[in-house]
């Protein structure tokens, strides 16, 4: 009995390509009772059959190409965004979404009355919002070695999404944006953007502009900015409720003007 109903769990390395490789297996082996989970969360269970899937770029590419004929570019973007949410169980919805578009003759990735399409779209929207927030709230500080440095702790894994924006905007300065939560960053060296990991000094405090690391004028510009921020406020129109809705408090510690 148990054998027949066992849930097949495919685990993968947490990358988008890994996930697509799993989708490939689902189709090739016609798995129906299946779930996809990143290896670090997949739990061995007595009742489920768990299998480690090795990421295979050929296979993932074939799935992606298949999707291209079945989805709009916006639909594919939503898949990717939702994936980067890293939300527990998001793979299930992504798989349902993919099944629905593959099963349909016409392009249905904007059929929001379909549960998985709606779910993926909603999650993608939150990720998109976080992407925009990070594009807005990143605060660079100039270090002693002429690097514009920023730390962030986004709710979702948005570094891959914001890289393009920062590369085209800050093309003539070196910069590094570091995700403290996920312990990696993106670094631009005036030519390319690359993923980096770094050993932060033990006493590094992300909200303190210590003179050991940062350029002499850095604090002064922060001060000018804070002052500007105060002067541009209109006291008689104060509306803190609206304010907090725009800038949720968890972001404040990174905004020098809010400290």
């Amino acid at each position, binding site marked *: 009995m148990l054998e027949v109903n066992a849930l097949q769990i495919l685990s993968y390395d947490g990358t988008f390509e890994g996930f697509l490789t799993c989708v490939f297996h689902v189709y090739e082996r016609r798995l129906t009772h299946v779930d996809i989970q990143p290896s670090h969360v997949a739990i061995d269970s007595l009742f489920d059959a768990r299998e480690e899937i090795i990421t295979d770029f050929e296979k993932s590419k074939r799935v992606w190409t298949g999707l291209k004929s079945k989805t709009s570019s916006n639909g594919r973007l939503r898949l990717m965004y939702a994936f980067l949410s890293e939300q527990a169980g998001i793979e299930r919805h992504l798989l349902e979404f993919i099944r629905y578009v593959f099963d349909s003759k016409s392009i249905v990735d904007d059929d929001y*009355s379909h549960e998985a399409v709606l779910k993926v779209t909603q999650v993608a929207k939150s990720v998109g919002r976080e992407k925009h927030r990070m594009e807005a709230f990143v605060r660079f500080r100039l270090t002693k070695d002429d690097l514009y440095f920023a730390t962030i702790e986004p709710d979702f894994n948005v570094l891959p999404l914001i890289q393009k924006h920062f590369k085209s905007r800050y093309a*003539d300065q070196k910069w590094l944006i570091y995700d403290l939560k996920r312990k990696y960053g993106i670094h631009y060296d005036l030519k390319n953007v690359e993923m980096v990991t770094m050993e932060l000094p033990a006493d590094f405090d992300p909200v303190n502009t210590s003179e050991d690391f940062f350029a002499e004028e850095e604090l002064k510009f922060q001060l000018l900015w804070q002052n500007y921020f105060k002067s541009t406020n209109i006291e008689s129109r104060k509306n803190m409720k609206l304010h907090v809705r*725009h800038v949720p408090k968890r972001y404040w510690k990174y905004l020098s003007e809010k400290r």
Partner: protein
Amino acid sequence: MSFERIKEKLEILADAAKYDVSCASSGSTRKNTTKGLGNSTGMGICHSYTEDGRCVSLLKILLTNYCIFDCAYCVTRKSNDIKRAAFQVQEVVDLTINFYRRNYIEGLFLSSGIFKSPDYTMERLVAVAKKLRLEENFHGYIHLKSIPGCSDELMREAGLYADRLSVNIEIPTETGLKLLAPDKKREDFIKPMTKVKNEIIQYKSEKKLIKSTPKYAPAGQSSQMIIGASGESDQQIMWTANYLYDKFDLRRVYYSGYIPISYDDRLPHIGTAVPMLRENRLYQTDWLMRFYGFKVNEIVNNEHPNLDLDVDPKLGWALRNLQLFPVDVNTADKLMLARVPGLGMKSVHKILHARRYRRLNWEHLKRLGVALNRAKYFLVCESRDFERRDLSAIQLKSLILQNSTSKYQPLLSPQLSLF
């Protein structure tokens, strides 16, 4: 540069500039093709928000708050006893670049009091923009104020470096202007606006022939009106706005509730509340005009010269036109759907999409994320369940108001509790 001096100037000149409400940094695309600094992507970014909930996306300052004019509604007016300061051109350039590199801002919004003469002032504003573009290779957003009364040549040059130009009308009626800004004439506003409009038209036609035609004010022009300073009606305001949109192809008109700054008897005194709710209703009306296909006189006319404060203008219009409802979600055309209270353009598009696949019922609409608390009184769909009572406008209004909370409630209630 001396930080102390700059700090003081920045305080004075940011404070004086804050009454200009426009902060938009959108509508312009400037690609960073030369590996220089910055770009404009067409969608403005709000990098922060002030405590009054307004977006901070530009460094918004005056070049100077010295002014030879004496407009009653303005803090910078000649007769006002305040601290004065003036930036040097290079100081503004340095501030802009350093703020931009730290991702504080999308660009610069530079305005000024009029010192010496309109042309003398405008020349300096243009010099800042020119330096930023040519010397700093800066592709971020630049909004310059067109100084009323300045020459056509300067306006032409301004547009070569700025993304947006604006002249603030400030006072919606001619009589109000005469009373409050005796130094200014309507023509002084009209002239630079006309010049910019013509330059934009010319740019567009040349662009078709010669691809390399230099950009001219790609984000167009905007203007601002002060609300509640001169006793004008909402109808007068919206007609003026409509005229500006029509005549000068303005991208945006901003409405700024008057913030009392003096005890001049021609104006509301210090301590009078800022008409924020009214301002909000005007923005809603503006929105309905620009994106929802409403004509001004459908919303404000001789019978209804002023907008309702307790309901938004679309609901107000619907309550006066109940004979047009209910509307069928599954068959109504886009324009009519857009007129249903509670349905935003996003919801309208979602409905249009979704109904290609199936006939929609309430459940579908909810799942689409369409807010129904007010729309349900004005809609029918694939369901036998709909509002059957023949409610009067007054009944309907109180029903809807019971079930909604406005973010302006605290502003509204002190007024209502008078009755």
